[in-house]
């Protein structure tokens, strides 16, 4: 992070120098190595899938994968993150159904969990907004959005190992968590 910060004004300085020096050919030689250095120093973004475990940045500046072991660790972590994401999605859905089915079937007798019959009263928007289930859902929503963006960014590295980890984790999570999923209007789905 600090690398990036320091190099920015540095580069500007040299840019200014070269702009002035266009009339002066001697100073021009001075600027060329620095621009080359800044080009090679930055991490190039791969735009095609590739298998590699050398110098793979993973979301944060401190997390750079350099060995096969680190890649294995990252694979497991990403796998479980994707699995957790699927579980969270399905948990939110079932929580939502538990807390809101009764409101949808407003003023209708609804069969309760153990054969009882519930009569639901109508709640206003304000009451709903301040209710615990909704606040809890909002917190879960934040977690879900953060994880979904993380997974998107991990997939975006184009590193084939990590992409496989995301896909396999999502598949495994779906397999284990959604076996009793019911058909509802799916509004918890986020960006993929």
């Amino acid at each position, binding site marked *: *992070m600090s690398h*990036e*910060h320091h190099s*920015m004004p540095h580069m500007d300085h040299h840019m200014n120098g070269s702009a002035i020096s266009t009339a002066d050919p001697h100073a021009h030689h001075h600027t060329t190595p620095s621009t080359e250095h*800044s*080009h090679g120093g*930055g*991490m*190039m*973004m791969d735009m095609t899938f590739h298998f590699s475990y050398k110098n793979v*940045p*993973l*979301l*944060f*500046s401190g*997390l750079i994968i350099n060995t096969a072991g680190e890649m294995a660790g990252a694979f497991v972590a990403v796998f479980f993150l994707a699995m957790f994401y699927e579980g969270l999605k399905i948990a939110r859905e079932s929580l939502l159904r538990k807390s*809101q089915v009764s*409101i*949808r*079937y407003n003023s*209708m007798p609804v069969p309760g969990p153990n054969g009882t019959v519930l009569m639901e009263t109508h*709640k*206003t*928007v304000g009451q*709903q*907004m301040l209710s615990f289930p*909704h*606040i809890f*859902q*909002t917190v879960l*929503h*934040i977690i879900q*959005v*953060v994880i979904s*963006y993380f997974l*998107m*960014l991990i997939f*975006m*590295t184009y590193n084939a190992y990590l992409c496989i980890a995301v896909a396999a984790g999502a598949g495994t999570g779906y397999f284990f968590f959604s076996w009793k999923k019911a058909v509802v*209007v799916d*509004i918890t789905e986020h*960006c993929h």
Partner: protein
Amino acid sequence: MMPMYFFFSDKVVLLFDFWNVHSPAGMALSVLVMMLLAVLYEAIKVGKAKLLLRTMPAMAPSLSQETLEEPERASMNTGVERLAGTPQKWFLWHSIQTLLHVVQVVLGYLVMLAVMSYNMWIFLGVIVGSAIGYYIAYPLLNAR
């Protein structure tokens, strides 16, 4: 070159050439815009679901009960006919839904591309906007 990890900076280029941020004030404004886009995304998501519930009340038990009592009307799309009327009207509703879907997809991609800049401020703005949007819009789904 573009870094591939999260960092705090007030310099970023978002989505278009002309959206070139290089000052704290510009960054604050950009974060605000991204927040509003995220709120809009959540609102459209809920609006779409609400429209769907209104035009396709197959899930509403009261309506399906009525259709059971009127067997001559109990066709595949009774609910649609009841609320949306003629097929022309149904087509109109469907077009509106399609339009909303397109807007939602485009917004989703724009926000995603902005997050892809790996700028922490933008990311936090998107998260906060998404949370606010969900918090406010979701209870409106069940409002009459």
